[in-house]
């Protein structure tokens, strides 16, 4: 994304007014390891560079390398999380935000991360994640129980209709929570969540999927038998890649896929790590898989009073 001159000017001004030159360079080095301001300015190292000029050079360079949004994420983090033990107040923050909204971006109010506004654009990397960088994601894996049997026992038309609905239900439930569908492999679907309260939105998204399939089986299912699904959820670090195969090889993804095998049909299986980061209201909906000792997994199922 190439930004407009006026937007770059806003960032440059905010940088110069909020942090010193040394900190600016440190932030730039988070993205470009060997970033050298003097070299970029073609000046000897002993030469003093005014703060506003330093800010201008850094912003120009970040824009040239298409790193302006990742740089903003790092810049904003000094206000939301702090930097080297100190928190900063960014001058002109709201003006920058306004420009970002106009450009089709939103900001995660919890940690200050900028991402594309799903109303305008839905891209695999939320418009901001960089190839090869490590990020923490919450993953959801959805799989249909005995799908191959359903394929054998139903007409091609019925299977096609069902499959379209299956993907639609998942896509709607995931994308309205700013998640992304990363992989569709037969009857298995991998969704990733990164922004906002990622673990919480993943679990709530999975509950919606399970509830919608409950209705789907009763009202719309064109197949001869009700469809059962299994969902597993796990979070972890993963190197972001545009390549599906690389994504699948990552440990966190491998884990979430293997957890699904442990789940009962029509059940959501959630790893303990995820549960620990949930708000109480959502955590209370989950039951431990084992009652002895510390449970490794929790589950959610839509069950009804028996009589």
């Amino acid at each position: 994304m190439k930004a407009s001159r006026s937007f770059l000017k806003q960032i440059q001004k905010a940088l110069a007014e909020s942090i010193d030159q040394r900190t600016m360079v440190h932030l730039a080095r988070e993205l470009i390891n060997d970033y050298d301001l003097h070299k970029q300015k073609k000046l000897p190292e002993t030469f003093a560079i005014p703060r506003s000029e330093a800010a201008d050079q850094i912003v120009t360079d970040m824009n040239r390398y298409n790193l302006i949004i990742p740089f903003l994420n790092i810049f904003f983090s000094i206000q939301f999380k702090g930097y080297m033990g100190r928190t900063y107040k960014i001058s002109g923050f709201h003006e920058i935000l306004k420009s970002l909204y106009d450009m089709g971006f939103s900001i995660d109010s919890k940690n200050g991360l900028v991402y594309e506004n799903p109303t305008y654009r839905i891209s695999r990397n939320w418009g901001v994640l960089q190839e090869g960088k490590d990020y923490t994601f919450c993953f959801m894996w959805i799989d249909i129980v005995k799908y191959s049997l359903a394929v054998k026992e139903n007409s091609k038309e019925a299977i096609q209709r069902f499959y379209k609905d299956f993907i639609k239900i998942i896509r709607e439930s995931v994308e309205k929570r700013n998640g992304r569908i990363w992989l569709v492999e037969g009857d298995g679907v991998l969704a990733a969540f990164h922004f906002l309260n990622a673990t919480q939105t993943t679990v709530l998204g999975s509950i919606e999927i399970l509830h919608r399939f409950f209705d789907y089986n009763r009202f719309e299912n064109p197949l001869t038998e009700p469809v059962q699904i299994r969902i597993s959820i796990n979070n972890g670090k993963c190197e972001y890649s545009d390549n599906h195969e690389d994504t699948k090889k990552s440990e966190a993804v491998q884990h979430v896929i293997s957890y699904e095998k442990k789940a009962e049909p029509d059940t959501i299986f959630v790893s303990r790590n995820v549960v620990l980061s949930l708000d109480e209201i959502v955590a209370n909906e989950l039951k431990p898989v084992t009652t002895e000792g510390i449970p490794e997994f929790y589950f959610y199922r839509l069950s009804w009073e028996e009589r």
Partner: protein
Amino acid sequence: MEIHIFTDNDKLKEYFREIEGAKDFSLTLAPVSSFKNTVKKLNHCEMIYLDIDKMDEAEIKKYIAYMSRLEFVRCGLIDPSDSANSVSHLFHMGFSDYIGKKELKAGVTPQRIAENMQFKACHLPPVRSDGAKLRAIKAPNSWNSIKEGKEYTFSMLFLRIDRIKEMKKNFGHKFIEQITGKYLGLFEKSINAHNGKLWNWDINKGVALFPYNENCGDIILSGYRFIRDSILFSAEYLHSPVKLEFTIVLHLGNLEYHKRGETGTTVSESMNLLYHASELMAKPGNYYLSQNISPHIPGEISDLFIEDGEFEGYSFMRMKKINPS
């Protein structure tokens, strides 16, 4: 079941001999001239047959159009001369039966009537607690046509956010104000989607009215989803720290309509029942349907509702508890 035959031919009764003798049926014969006046008063799933013999085409057409608009009875035509042009068209228009020359000669059997009943579902009419049947007054589709002070049949929905005292104690008065205010917005949005109106609301509870029509099964469905998806509403929409629990009671009955805020003088046996059932019978966190509305439960979810006893002469169904501990 009552069967009304409108004919000017006294001999027609002979073909219904088997029905006359059957214990589940009562047969009434009346002249065609009394058709409209009598039919207007029927609304309890009675079966009505009109003998179209000796009528001209224009007259038949007029009667068919009139009968196709009758919602609370089942209709059939008796056509001894096989003069009807398109029998299948009749069924498309909501008719339950057509008796031509051949069928008439064979005689109408109780089995045929039973099959008619299965062919076209007819919703049970509202009843009063004393067993008297209420006349179902279909409300106009547009609220603009609903007149102040006139009686209509409404689906009446009572909704209460439960555990309000406990929440007030734990999270404070301001929290309750915020959460109920936000919830009311969500509730009103959902009511409007079903052409309903919020009739009254007081802190954490209120009543919504929906003009009675063939879509009242959708209101039942909506209530079921409201309770089932409570965790999603509570956590994502209301940003509540606790899952909200609701009590819903749905009833079908007559009410003299008055605008919100001008309901002080409203006297309605149905509304009384709704309030009494909500306050005295309903257990928190449950969803109840009175016997008047329960026949409208969509078949796809009927197994989720169970009989739950009687209250003030009405039987009630309750939705099964979700994820019981």
